[in-house]
């Protein structure tokens, strides 16, 4: 009986030992692997953020060119409408001012977004690893705001500028059919 009990105790002791060893060793190993993966992920993220920054700079430049061209066209139409004494010229000027304001907002948002991308893409992954996630969060927030500002510009042009221009064209049509230069409503 005593011999059986000794053997049983040995087995239990062994199992307990293995269990304790597992509980103590595995977490430390897991912690080490987690640290290595984070630094590697940081390096990958920095590379992608730098690429994103270059793409955003190009997009920003292209959008600025289109916005400038549209505003120049509206300026020309306002000039001709003034010469023609267009009675609803305020619609054109209001639309132009609104679009310009939205363009300015969009430009500011893009600048802020590019700054967040620069900040996130220049983090030292070996020393300031903890700052990566907050930087990425700030960039994502700025990206959402930029996207909203770009949509606002598009919306203002589509819903204000173009209708105002078409209204001016319609007024011109009425002026051609009725030679009198009255300011008909």
């Amino acid at each position, binding site marked *: 009986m005593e011999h059986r009990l000794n053997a049983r105790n040995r087995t239990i002791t062994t199992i307990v030992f293995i269990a304790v060893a597992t509980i103590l060793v595995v977490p430390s190993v897991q912690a080490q692997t987690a640290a290595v993966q984070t630094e590697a992920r940081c390096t990958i993220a920095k590379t992608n953020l730098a690429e994103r920054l270059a793409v955003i700079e190009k997009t920003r430049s292209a959008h600025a060119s289109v916005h400038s061209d549209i505003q120049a066209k509206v300026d020309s139409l306002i000039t001709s409408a003034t010469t023609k004494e267009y009675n609803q010229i305020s619609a054109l000027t209001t639309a132009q001012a609104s679009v310009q304001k939205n363009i300015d907002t969009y430009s500011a948002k893009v600048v802020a977004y590019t700054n967040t991308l620069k900040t996130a893409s220049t983090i030292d992954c070996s020393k300031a690893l903890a700052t990566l996630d907050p930087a990425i969060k700030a960039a994502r927030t700025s990206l959402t705001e930029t996207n909203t500002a770009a949509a606002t510009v598009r919306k203002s042009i589509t819903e204000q500028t173009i209708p105002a221009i078409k209204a001016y064209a319609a007024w011109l049509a009425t002026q*051609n059919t009725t030679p009198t230069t009255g300011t008909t409503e």
Partner: protein
Amino acid sequence: MNPPNNYNQPISPEDDAMLQAIEALEAQTVDPDPKPLVPETPVTPAPEPIPTPVITPAPVPTPLPVIEPTPIITEAPTAPTTPEPATKPTDPSSAIAAALARGPETTTPKSTYQPFPKKKLGKKPLLIILAIILVAGLGVGGYFGWQYLQSQKTSPIVNGIDTSVPDEDPGLPEDSEASVNSTASDIENQVNSIDETEYKDETLSDAALYE
């Protein structure tokens, strides 16, 4: 045929005749230079215009004796010694040679008269220059006159009011209904061409950042 090497020796009649004939021919070939003689007599006709002095000096009778000396200027070194022994034979050619030999004394004044004709020719360029200036003046005046007439046609002023049509035609297309509608459609196309996909949230997703 052979010229005498020593002038003290007598010359054969044939050689002597040949030599005299050559000298006579040389004298005739140089004669046609009557111009230098002109200055002496033309001093008085100088006030006359260009054409007369050139024509009159040639027929002057006096120059003939003076003309003959000119060729002798070049022949002087050879002629002086030979003619004296040659004149003795009393040939007509020897007389001519003797006359030629006297020439060198009167040759010097001819060279001094050569500048005079050049002075007379100086009036022609003056007339040519005046004619060119006149033609150029007419051309410039005609050009500016034509410009003035053109400006009168394009901007007629009636009773102090400019009745010319202002250049508003180039601006008319922009003011037409069609052009304005075209501008609106252009702007619409530009807005639709704006690519905003780079501002999508997916661009900064974990999948996009950590791949």
